[in-house]
């Protein structure tokens, strides 16, 4: 029998970055009921995450009224550990500031903060767009191609949609592309060994932290630390004001060349828009993504070339570590990109080898009830029997999100039938009646 709590020892690729502040957790069922992959159980009054089911989508962080679910990320203090520090700002960072009409203000502020270099993730995104456009034109490519950019979606596909794993784009995500390009440039420029160069990604979400520490598709991420967008935002504000007030005319310096395509990646639909085809589907919000993947698996979508999927509503601007409302952020990005060239970054020579995944993403059957078919059949029969005994209210009081999920936990031997308050009540009533009879 597969013991969920022990599964983690078997697959270390199931590291995830959302953690629980047990002191703040009151064991309510808000996260339990809203987790789109049924990855949460409330046991002994505390909310536990089943690592294998969690895709780090951040839904639990959004709904927890006690702020007990937390995203883990790295402190900026790590900057002192490297001789040469590079910041990788994603386009959604630009969308956090009011009245920003020049992204160089943000990039210059990052330098003021102590970074030796900045490399726009939006620039790398334009390279990803260009390589993807070529991929879609190649007649050997099996269409549609699913975007590899959202780590939460990739984690979802690998555990729930076995027949879609091979449709994931073989091209790395913009953040990984940016890290590789930035490291190469820095090593050429500084002649420092790799370990003295620190690559800091400014993350809008916990899923990207996970992708850096336990990447899928690449053997090792070139990003060294993940700092939270919400952490860096208040530090950049005063620095940006200072740079904007500079009267010498030498600031802000031109530090980024990303154009409209790269900037647009920050919002839902931006990635697909950069492919210059109208045969695409762009879906945002993890629940909608799950529905779309179900339909895609059933071959209900015809004539599509590309599928963009974002776990967060609104795209990456909707990440839980972003500060601004995602819909306002979209307005700001639209303003910011207004007078930018279509694309500021192009592949000049051959496509670098680091642009592609070097490791296959494999299906992980974590939802399988048993380890053998025989065991699965016997457990499924047990579950089907058990589920009839529960009231079907899906109230969550037992600590599982639905009566069905609870039946599975009972069949697996990790929960008890009497965790259900309705079963318990009947049991107590029966006991009392027996007692009366004895008296």
């Amino acid at each position, binding site marked *: 029998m597969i013991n969920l709590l022990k599964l983690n020892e078997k697959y270390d690729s199931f590291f995830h970055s959302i953690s629980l502040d047990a002191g703040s957790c009151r064991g309510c069922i808000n996260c339990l009921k809203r987790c789109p992959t049924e990855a949460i159980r409330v046991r002994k009054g505390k909310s536990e995450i089943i690592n294998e089911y969690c895709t780090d989508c951040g839904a639990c962080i959004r709904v927890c009224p006690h702020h007990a679910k937390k995203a883990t990320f790295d402190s900026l203090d790590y900057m002192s550990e490297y001789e040469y520090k590079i910041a990788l700002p994603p386009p959604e960072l630009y969308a956090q500031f009011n009245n920003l009409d020049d992204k160089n203000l943000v990039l210059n502020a990052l330098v003021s903060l102590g970074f030796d270099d900045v490399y726009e993730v939006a620039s790398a995104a334009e390279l990803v767009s260009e390589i993807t456009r070529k991929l879609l034109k190649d007649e050997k490519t099996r269409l549609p191609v699913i975007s590899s950019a959202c780590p939460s979606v990739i984690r979802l596909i690998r555990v729930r949609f076995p*027949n879609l794993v091979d449709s994931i784009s073989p091209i790395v995500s913009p953040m990984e592309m940016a890290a590789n390009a930035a490291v190469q440039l820095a090593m050429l420029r500084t002649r420092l060994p790799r370990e003295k160069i620190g690559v800091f990604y400014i993350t809008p979400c916990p899923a990207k932290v996970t992708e850096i520490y336990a990447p899928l598709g690449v053997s090792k991420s070139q990003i060294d630390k993940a700092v939270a967008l919400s952490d860096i935002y208040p530090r950049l504000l005063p620095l940006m004001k200072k740079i904007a007030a500079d009267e010498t005319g030498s600031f802000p310096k031109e530090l980024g060349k990303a154009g409209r395509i790269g900037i647009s990646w920050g919002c839902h639909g931006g990635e697909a828009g950069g492919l210059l085809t109208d045969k695409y589907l762009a879906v945002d919000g993890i629940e909608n993504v799950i529905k779309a993947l179900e339909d895609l*698996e059933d071959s209900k979508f015809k004539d599509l070339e590309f599928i963009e999927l974002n776990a967060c509503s609104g795209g990456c601007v909707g990440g839980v570590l972003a500060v601004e409302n995602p819909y306002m952020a979209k307005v700001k990005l639209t303003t910011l990109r207004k007078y930018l060239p279509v694309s500021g970054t192009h592949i000049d020579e051959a496509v670098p080898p680091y642009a592609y995944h070097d490791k296959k993403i494999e*299906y992980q059957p974590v939802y399988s009830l048993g380890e053998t*078919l025989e065991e699965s059949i016997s457990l499924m*029969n047990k579950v089907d029997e058990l589920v009839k005994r529960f009231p079907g209210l899906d109230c969550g009081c037992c600590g599982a999100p639905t009566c069905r999920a609870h039946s599975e936990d009972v069949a697996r031997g990790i929960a008890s039938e009497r965790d259900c308050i309705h079963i318990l009540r009947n049991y107590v009533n029966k006991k009392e009646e027996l007692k009366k009879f004895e008296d």
Partner: protein
Amino acid sequence: MSASVLQLHYDVPGDDFTRAGEASSAIKNKLKQMGIAPDVIRNVAIATYEGEINMVIHANGGTIDVTIDADAISLVLKDTGAGIPDVELAMREGYTTAKEEIRALGFGAGMGLPNMKKYTDEFELKSEVGQGTEVNMKVYLKK
């Protein structure tokens, strides 16, 4: 019921076209929980989906029975619809008797029965005009 056999039963309602495909979707998700190989899941999902759509379009619904044992997934699709007068003709790719409004939705391309045969290891169709149709299919579980 033997412990090493799993039986699933689904009623396919014929009166609500918008719900067609729900049974095959439920079957697919059950199979994922059984640790069944992805290509087998795909084949079963296609065969049951095509059959389910056929039952809704042509036969006012029916039933799907799935039996899973160590060797194979067996599928029995039954309806009490109009029946198929010429089975050989119906098995031909592209042959369809679906109404225009159904075809406008992208169904009725005449690939349903041929696909059911193509994606299964055993396929048997019994039909009697005025009585109904029964399709028996098997997808082997390769070891």
